[in-house]
C-alpha cells in the first residue's frame, strides 16, 4: 500500500520536471524567434484620422492608444484577425484587420493581406479539419491536412482512428482532391488516394494477431462555406484493403466535420 503510493507520486514528479524543461525550451525558442529579424518589419502609414490600438487581440480588450494620421507603424506579427503593431514612439498594441485595411504602404498603395473570407474559401494554400463518422460500422475520428496547388487541386494527408466492437485501428492516407466548383458556397469534390491500415482485433475474438495492409480509396464529398475561415466537410470514401488473404476487403467510410483554411 505504502509502496504503491510512493510510485504513483514519484513518476509524475519526474515527468513533470521533464515537461517543465520542454516548456522552458519552447519558451526560449519562442523568445529567440521573436527577437530575430526585427529589421524586416513591415512599415505602414495611417491614412484614416487615427488608428485604435487595443490592449489585446480581441474586441473585449480596451483601446488605450491611438496613432494619428500620417504616422508610421511597424507590424510585428499577426494573431487571428489582429495585428501587433509598434509606433515610432515605441508604443505597442493590437489593431484589428478591418482598421489595418485602411493603412497604406510607403508608396501610398493600400496594405492588402489574406483576410479569411469567402474569397479565401475558393483560393487558399492550406486547410485542416476534424471529422467524425462511421468506418464500416466502427466509430471514426479523422483529421486531415491539405495543401492546394491551385483552386481545384490539392494533396491531402488523412490520419484516422476507428473504434469498433470487433476491432480497433488506425489508418494513414495520402491522396489527391479535385474540387470541381471552388467558386460555389456548396462545392463538391472527388478524391483518390492510397494508404495503410493497422488493424487490431479485440482479444475476445478468434483472430488474435494484428494486421497491417495497404489500402486504396476513391471518394467524393461536399464542402459548405460557413463564414470567416470555416467550412463543413462531408465525405464518403470507398476503400479497398489489399489483404494477404485470398480476397480483398471493402470498407465504406462516411464522415462529417468542421474544417478551416489558412
Amino acid at each position, binding site marked *: 500500500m505504502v509502496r504503491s503510493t510512493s510510485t504513483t507520486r514519484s513518476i509524475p514528479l519526474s515527468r513533470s520536471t521533464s515537461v517543465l524543461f520542454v*516548456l522552458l525550451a519552447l*519558451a526560449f525558442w*519562442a523568445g529567440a524567434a521573436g527577437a530575430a529579424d526585427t529589421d524586416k518589419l513591415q512599415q505602414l502609414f495611417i491614412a484614416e484620422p487615427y488608428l485604435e490600438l487595443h490592449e489585446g487581440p480581441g*474586441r*473585449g480588450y480596451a483601446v488605450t492608444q491611438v496613432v494619428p494620421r500620417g504616422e508610421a507603424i511597424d*507590424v510585428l506579427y499577426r494573431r487571428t484577425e489582429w495585428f501587433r503593431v509598434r509606433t515610432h514612439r515605441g508604443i505597442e498594441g493590437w489593431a484589428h484587420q478591418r482598421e489595418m485595411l485602411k493603412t497604406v504602404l510607403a508608396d501610398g498603395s493600400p496594405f492588402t493581406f489574406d483576410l479569411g473570407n469567402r474569397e479565401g474559401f475558393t483560393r487558399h494554400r492550406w486547410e485542416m479539419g476534424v471529422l467524425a463518422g462511421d468506418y464500416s460500422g466502427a466509430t471514426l475520428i479523422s483529421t486531415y491536412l491539405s495543401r492546394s496547388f491551385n483552386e481545384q487541386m490539392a494533396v491531402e494527408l488523412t490520419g484516422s482512428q476507428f473504434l469498433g466492437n470487433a476491432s480497433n485501428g488506425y489508418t494513414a492516407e495520402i491522396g489527391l482532391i479535385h474540387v470541381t466548383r471552388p467558386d460555389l458556397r456548396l462545392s463538391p469534390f472527388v478524391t483518390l488516394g492510397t494508404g495503410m491500415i493497422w488493424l487490431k482485433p479485440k482479444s475476445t475474438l478468434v483472430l488474435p494477431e494484428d494486421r497491417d495492409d495497404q489500402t486504396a480509396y476513391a471518394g467524393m464529398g461536399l464542402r459548405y462555406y460557413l463564414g470567416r*475561415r470555416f467550412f463543413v466537410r462531408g465525405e464518403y470514401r470507398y476503400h479497398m484493403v489489399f489483404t494477404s488473404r485470398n480476397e480483398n476487403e471493402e470498407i465504406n467510410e462516411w464522415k462529417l466535420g468542421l474544417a478551416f483554411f489558412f
Partner: protein
Amino acid sequence: METGPRLLLLTALASLSLSGCAMFRGSAEERATAAEEPDPAAAEPDAAGAAPPKVIEPEVERREVKVARIDAENIELGAFYGALSIEDFGTNPVYGIRAAYHVTEDIFFEAAFGRSKAGKTSFETIGGDVELLTDDERRFTYYNLSLGYNILPGEVYLGRGLAMNGALYVLGGIGSTKFAGDQRFSVNFGAGYRVLPTDWLAIHIDVQDIVFQSDLLGKDKLTNNMMATLGATVFF
C-alpha cells in the same frame, strides 16, 4: 531675374512628376486628359523669351515597396499537469501536452494528449488481495480533438499595477481513451481560463469531463472522468 527661370524649372518639374503619378495610379481617363493638355514646359519658354530648358531627369529612383512577410502567431503549444478522477478508480495525477490553432479571435481547435494511472477501486482496497487490473491496464491514456470558443475575453487586474489579458473559454470534442486494456471512443467537454502574462505565454486553468462507455465493472455504463489541470502554453 532669378525667379523667372526658377519658376519655370519648378513648373516643369511639377508637371513631370504629376504626369508620372497619373501614369502610375490614375485611371485610363485621367491619363488621357493628362496627355491632351498642352505641355506647359513646352509652351512657356516662348512666352518668357528664354532659351528652351533642358528636360530634367529626376535622379530619385522610385522606391520599390515590398510587402514583408508578416509572422502569424496562431499556434499555441504547451503542457499541463493536474488531477484526474477516473470513475471508480480514485483521483490521480494527470499530465499531458496540448496544441491549439487559433482560427479567429473567438474560435480555436485544440488537440490534447494526456496520461494518468488509475488507483484502486474501493472493492480492491477493502478486499485485500483482489486485483481487478494489472499494473499495465491501470494506465489511462487519452487524446482528444476539440473546438473551443473564447466567451469572456478581457483584462484581469492583479493588484494595482498589473493587468493581464485573459479569456474564459468553453471547449468540447471527440477522441479516444485507452484504459483497462480497451480503447474507447470518448467525448470531452469543459471550460478553462487562459491568462497571458506576456503576449506569447499563456497560463491555463482547465476543467474537463472525459466521458466514455465502459463495462469494466460488469454493467455497461457511461463513465465521467473529471479532470482539473494547470498548464502553460507558448504562442508561435
